[in-house]
């Protein structure tokens, strides 16, 4: 760098205040207090510098994004992949019937809103992939337009992130192009899926945080608060769409933690913060990034509950109390209060087996040599049968008025009607579980005399109040053996042949388990025309919001963890950066058309390899520093560690945690991380092609002599003198290849035209399992 260059720099420094955004240096912003003051003083001055080149670029890119996302959006006019789920949920919202899903409601509510806008009534339930939208008159284009809109807007947001971070135009364009011409982003955002919302909100949260961070020299100002709250809101949208949104919290959270850690530093360049001041910073971020987003999150659930007021397919997932808040719920509608001397069928809630007995007895000796009581077998049996009928008897049979209701915590006895025996449990090990008590029956005579105590059972209604009446269906209870305090329990391992492979029933000492719950399924002794079966008009009850939310939240986490089944197109996280395989979304045999969800391999490989390059640069820099060799100039290093480091952090936090997840994973889980890797790629383009140190040591010394302090300049202005030719050339080459790859795989993304066999085979790059290859 010549002396002239530095002269020009100093000139630039004098006009720094005029720039539109004084901190447009991105993350590597100046830290001098005097400069800060200068900037603050100039904040109000409107800048004429509007950076037309960037504006033109972002406009063009936005237009391209809309074209690529909306092109042929009406094709295919059939249900594709997970539209099965999310289209269905939108219909449920529109029909207001309660459903259950493991994802939070925000993304689905957006679809429902869209459906509501176009006046759709939700009659179609998206049952199978390949169902026709035309025949069923579904406004699917409107539904798909919503994610496509989000997907298209993601691209300018990516551009803006790079712009705000102060990268040169080629770098900004490259990052935006990597997302713009990416088949995976296009493919995923043209369909009724949640990922478009997720990725868009995630990108917005990065952008908002960068904007917020750039205002750090003006803390607690109006704009500062604005961007802080917007960051919080974007984060809230991410997590309210899918729970993987928690990774965005980790990204922003880590950045905030590092920022706070620096604020705590006494040797901070702007001077040490006092602890109360620090506390204020801390509290502001906690409120803006945690508390307020949480309330937004809760708000979507409130909307969810408010809309879904009718009984629907999700009822079974909820407790009876919850179901009572839904109108026309079958379970509560058909509940009948149980009287003593009714004969009832008792069903196990988890395995759906009935409490059953038959005249066969337990074998004297089990295979392992243990000995049974040789009593009558009591088993669980999954089908309706007269042997499932038990008469419920009160403690004292003599002085009972008929028609008395069975209440919570009352002691009852159960008579097996067919064999006229009484249910009993005693301290004998059950066939399979030496620690659990055997269940058997004894004759009525015995039950009245010496075995009396062992036949007593307590009805303990789940979440029941004292004195609550036991109802069929809705009354879920545990049957606790009164003397020994074990709960009647069953499991799915079938007994050997001597019990016809029916379920074992035994007494479980662990009373707390939810698998101890039974309910009365039917009361066969009530005649069909009995007044007891008449249904009264039922009031829909209400529950406090938080109680409903807690219950739903628990159920969602439980079922999310249970999603471990395999899927033919599921993939492992290590496959994603290399794009080893995609997902088949839709196929049509007649036209040989297919949608195969796949990224643009060239773009992905480029982005992934540059991640490795980035890690390598950092490691090399650290090692050489450790050996006392300083190879980078200060500005490049600051930029590399702070700005690019932030993007890299975003990639890592959106990617690495998937390794810890046991559930089914798909390629589309990588999309947020891919977006972050595109940002890193853009940043590295600038780093690699502008390696020329901006200020060599001589200049710095000269500057120091002149001014006594280093001048800090916005990044872009520092390289004003540098030729960006190399960057532009590199961008041109990379763009050409990316667009080529994008175009090549486009038929698989848009689902048309159908490809011939050689064409399909040409696209089976890494053994992508495409259809119609033969």
């Amino acid at each position, binding site marked *: 760098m010549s002396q002239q260059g530095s002269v020009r720099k100093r000139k630039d420094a004098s006009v720094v205040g005029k720039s539109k955004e004084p901190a447009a240096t991105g*993350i590597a912003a100046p*830290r001098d207090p005097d400069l800060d003051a200068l900037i603050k003083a100039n904040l109000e001055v409107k800048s004429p510098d509007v950076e037309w080149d960037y504006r033109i670029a972002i406009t063009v890119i936005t237009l391209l994004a809309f074209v690529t996302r909306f092109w042929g959006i009406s094709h295919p006019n059939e249900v594709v*992949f*997970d539209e099965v*789920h999310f289209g269905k949920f939108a219909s449920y919202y529109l029909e207001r019937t309660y459903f259950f899903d493991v*994802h939070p409601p925000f993304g689905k509510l957006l679809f429902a809103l869209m459906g509501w806008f176009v006046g759709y009534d939700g009659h179609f339930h998206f049952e199978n*992939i390949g169902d026709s939208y035309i025949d069923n008159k579904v406004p699917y284009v409107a539904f798909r337009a919503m994610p496509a809109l989000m997907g298209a807007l993601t691209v300018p947001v990516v551009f803006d992130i790079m712009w705000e971070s102060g990268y040169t135009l080629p770098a900004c364009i490259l990052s935006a192009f990597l997302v713009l011409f990416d088949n995976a982003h296009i493919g995923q955002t043209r369909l009724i899926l949640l990922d478009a919302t997720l990725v868009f909100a995630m990108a917005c949260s990065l952008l908002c945080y960068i904007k917020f961070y750039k205002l750090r020299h003006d803390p607690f100002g109006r704009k500062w608060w604005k961007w802080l709250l917007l960051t919080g809101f974007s984060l809230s949208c991410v997590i309210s769409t899918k729970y993987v949104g928690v990774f965005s919290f980790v990204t922003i959270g880590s*950045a905030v933690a*590092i920022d706070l850690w*620096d604020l*705590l*530093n*006494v040797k901070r360049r702007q001077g040490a913060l006092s602890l109360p001041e620090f506390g204020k910073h801390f509290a502001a971020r906690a409120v803006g990034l945690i508390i307020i987003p949480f309330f937004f999150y809760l708000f979507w659930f409130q909307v969810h509950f408010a809309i879904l007021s009718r009984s629907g*397919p999700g009822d079974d997932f*909820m407790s009876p109390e919850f179901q009572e808040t839904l109108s026309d719920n079958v379970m509560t509608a058909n509940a009948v209060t149980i009287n003593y001397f009714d004969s009832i069928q008792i069903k196990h809630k*988890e*395995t759906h087996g009935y409490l059953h007995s*038959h*005249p066969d007895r337990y*074998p004297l000796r089990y295979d392992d040599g*243990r000995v049974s009581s040789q009593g009558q077998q009591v088993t669980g049996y*999954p*089908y*309706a*049968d*007269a042997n499932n009928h038990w008469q419920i008897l009160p403690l004292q049979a003599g002085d009972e008025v008929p028609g008395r209701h069975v209440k919570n915590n009352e002691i009852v006895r159960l008579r097996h009607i*067919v064999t006229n025996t009484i249910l009993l449990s005693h301290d*004998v*090990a*059950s066939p399979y579980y*030496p*620690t659990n*008590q055997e269940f058997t029956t004894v004759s009525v005579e015995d039950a009245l005399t010496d075995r009396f105590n062992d036949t007593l059972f307590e009805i303990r209604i789940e979440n029941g109040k004292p004195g609550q009446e036991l109802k069929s269906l809705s009354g879920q209870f545990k049957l606790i053996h009164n003397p020994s305090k074990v709960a009647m329990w069953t*499991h799915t*391992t079938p007994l*050997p*042949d001597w019990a*016809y*492979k029916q*379920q074992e029933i035994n007494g479980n*000492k*662990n009373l707390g388990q*939810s*698998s101890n*719950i039974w309910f009365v399924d039917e009361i066969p002794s009530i005649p069909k025309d009995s007044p007891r079966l008449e249904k009264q008009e039922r009031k829909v009850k209400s529950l406090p919001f938080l109680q409903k939310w807690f219950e739903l939240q*628990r*159920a969602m986490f*439980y079922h999310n963890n249970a*999603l*471990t*089944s395999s*899927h033919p197109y*599921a993939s492992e996280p290590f496959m994603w950066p290399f794009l080893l395989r995609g997902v088949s979304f839709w*196929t049509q045999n007649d036209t040989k058309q297919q949608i195969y969800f796949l990224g643009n391999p060239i773009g992905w490989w480029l982005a992934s390899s540059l991640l490795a390059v980035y890690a390598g640069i950092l490691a090399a820099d*650290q090692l050489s*520093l*450790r*050996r006392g060799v300083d190879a980078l100039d200060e500005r490049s*290093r600051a930029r590399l*560690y702070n700005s690019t480091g932030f993007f890299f952090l975003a990639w890592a936090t959106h990617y690495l945690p998937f390794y810890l997840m046991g559930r089914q994973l798909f390629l589309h889980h990588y999309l947020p991380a891919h977006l972050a890797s595109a940002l890193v790629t853009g940043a590295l383009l600038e780093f690699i092609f502008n390696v020329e140190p901006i200020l060599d040591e001589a200049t710095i010394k000269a500057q120091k002599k002149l001014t006594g302090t280093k001048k800090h300049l916005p990044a872009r202005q520092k390289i004003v003198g540098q030729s960006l030719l190399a960057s532009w050339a590199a961008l041109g080459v990379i763009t050409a290849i990316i667009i080529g790859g994008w175009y090549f795989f486009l038929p698989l993304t848009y689902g048309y035209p159908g490809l011939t066999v050689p064409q399909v085979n040409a696209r089976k790059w890494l053994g992508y399992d495409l259809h119609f290859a033969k």
Partner: protein
Amino acid sequence: MAKPAKSGSPAPAKVSQSTASPTIIRKHEDYTSEGVEDYDVFLLPGSDYQAMLAVTVLATIVRLFRIYQPSSVVFDEVHFGGFASKYIKGKFFMDVHPPLAKLLITLAGWLAGFDGEFDFKDIGKDYLEPGVPYVAMRMLPAICGILLVPTMFLTLKAAGCRTMTAVMGSCLIVFENGLLTQARLILLDSPLMIMTAFTGLAFTSFTNQHEQGPSKAFQPTWWFWLAMTGLGLGATASIKWVGFFTIAWVGSLTILQLWVLLGDVKTVTPRLFAKHLVARIFCLIVIPITFYMAMFGIHFICLVNPGDGDGFMSSEFQATLNSKAMQDVPVDVAFGSRVSIRHHNTQGGYLHSHNLMYPTGSKQQQITLYPHKDENNLWLLENMTQPLDISGEPINGSLAWDALPSPEFIKDGDTLKLYHLTTHRRLHSHDVRPPVTEADWQNEVSAYGYEGFEGDANDFFRVEIIKKMSDGEEAKKRLRTIETKFRLIHVMTGCVLFSHKVKLPEWASEQQEVTCAKGGTLPNSVWYVEQNEHPQLGETAEKVNYKNPGFFGKFWELQKVMWHTNAGLVESHAWDSRPPSWPILRRGINFWGKDNRQIYLIGNPIVWWSSTLAVAVFAVFKGIAVLRWQRGFRDYNNPIFKRFDYEIGTMVLAWAFHYFPFYLMQRQLFLHHYFPALYFAVMALCQVYDYVTARVPGIGLRENPIFGRLGAIVFLALTAVVFTIYSPLAYGNPWTQSACKQAKLFETWDWDCNTFLHDYSQYSTQSINANADVHKTDSPLIPTNAPVAPAGGQAAQQPLIQDHHGISEAPPPVVSEPPVALPVGQSILSREEKVEYRDQDGNLLDPEQVKALEGKVSFKTRYETRTRLVDAQGNEIPQPDGAGVAPPHPDVDGVDSSTLGKPEPESQDAPVAQKEVRADESKEESIAKSDKGAAKPASEGNEATGV
């Protein structure tokens, strides 16, 4: 992103600074640490050795006290004793732990004359009567447990503590009930502990040498301890895989040390740095790996015979075992070859048929998978059309190909008929649902025809070679024995011959089901030819056999199987616990109970809680120190402060490495998994004590050592008293109910006080009640969960009658009356088989009704398959044969891989009932179906509904 890069001292420098590895030193010009002296344990004064000897003697007394008691099998002795007998007999077994400790136990037993004839089958099984040298076998863990005490002593000395502290630390180990309990029984944890501790000693000594700077580097002591660290790591990892946590600890500290070295620009030249690096790579990577693999080498040398672990391993692996090896067979398969066809993905065995009919479906002859060699496995491969003779006339008969001038090899895409030689029927499939898997996408496979029948179109199967899995160029083009993996596609329906781990009912001797599955690429549809014979392929024909995988092949395969089995141990166990409960000692493990005595693994609460407290105190200290450092306080300039931070930090790091990774493990965990972490926590506790009483100036304790001594004595006395209180649970000594109830501070310490008698005097008079009539449910002997099935498909499918060759197993169905029709009170004690007739509502019909209906309606017979469990892989979960036979402590041996993912009965939080079985079945279906290639939604929302 916010951190400004400080030129020259970027982020990691902070870290190294904060952990006080001294990078900026005033006294030293090199990487020598400030405030470090030479604590070489070989140079201790004689009095220290005397003290060490004293504690060792104490430990010996405490560990060996009544080691013969109890004289029956306790807890996991079932497994490890069992492995010893398998080693002695050389029978191959599969276990999730590496072999070193088991080999040592075997060695101890073998030296004492154990012949391997005792099977250690049940907890509580008597040792005395069969004359098992169990005391000798228990001596090995006991010696390891004793050695743990001097190791703790030396490690504390090597860390620079005073003798008083070292004695205190080693006594805490002596009086640790949990370590004692483990060290008195044939278990792996005691060897694991001593090796972990030894590694800790070696690495502490090495660190001490390293920190003394360049003058000590590459000296004999330096080399010795570095090599010992490597050896210790190898040994630890060869006992249990938990040893990898130790490796992680040593590894991360080594990287830190190298980082320090790298920063010493003055004395460490790049050449010297390379030397440091290479020395560490050799000692800490090469030595442990070599040691680990050597252990497996011995393992393979010992286990040469087939055993119950075979089922886990591939056919290639099994072929290396004695008597499982097979003769070389001709490699080329031609029309007219007699072959046996083996299923590739399951260990179910060979495609098999026998002269018994399906009771359902087509009622044609059964096709099964049979695990043993048998002439019913032999099939003759016929071409679709009969060959022509010279005059152009077809030669009839199945043996027609034998007469041809030259054998015609079978190529990819050829269509075959498979002729079953003993029953003269051909493999056949049609649109009938199979007997067990009654899914739409499955067709029944049967054997159909008679002698002389030329077959029909439903007998045609097309060979499709799977090129990726076939070995060699030739094998990709035509059918070759073993080398070629292929599918058989039924020409008429397009389905593929398929088998899975679903067993047929008793009428087929519980052999594995074979079906024809519609759809493309299922791993369960891959087959290969194992036996091959053709009259025209003489002695000189090219032969083939299973490839010998070699040591590395076997080693690697075993590692993979161990890993998968280990990860699959997710069933809950009656005594398992999760990591958060360990540091607070929430609950223990019930090991054994008999004759009113009990062994229950519980730690010494004083030791556990105080060590946890020490870790917590250090964590708080560290947090404050780092905050103060960021706020500009110069604490780290004080060498004592810095050394405290670094030395205790090292041990707390070891604690963290041995504790937190368990949070990530889904498999079942037990209290004893905390022992290595506990050891390091005790070490941290002692070091904290040492600093407070002897090194930190200004609080008055350093100046008055009497207080430190007094404190240690009081603390030790307290520990010893508490130890005595709980010792009956460790030794299996007599105890009284009242003493027990007093000692039971928390409900979660769930040993059963009712086991004990009311008075000690009763123990001397009690009669041993060995054969109680009825098993009381309180018996804690056998943990609750369903018993583990024996390993592998083969073990589960032993033929019922071994020498029954002609027909492999199928009892004639016995029809008996349905139970409803029985008069009340009558009981049937045993019954082999029955057919129930039900109407459309599932109600049982009695025989009269059935008779009346006969002829008017067709009966669909269902066998009791409704409660069948299928796991996520589509494998059937075997019924627990012999409940309670194997104590299901699954830490060890082979849970059959088919029990993976079994729905867990204990799940506490299940808010909703699920039809698990049906859901699983539909899952299996969807997996299989999806291969049709149609797109399928991710199971995101919908699947959870389970309906």
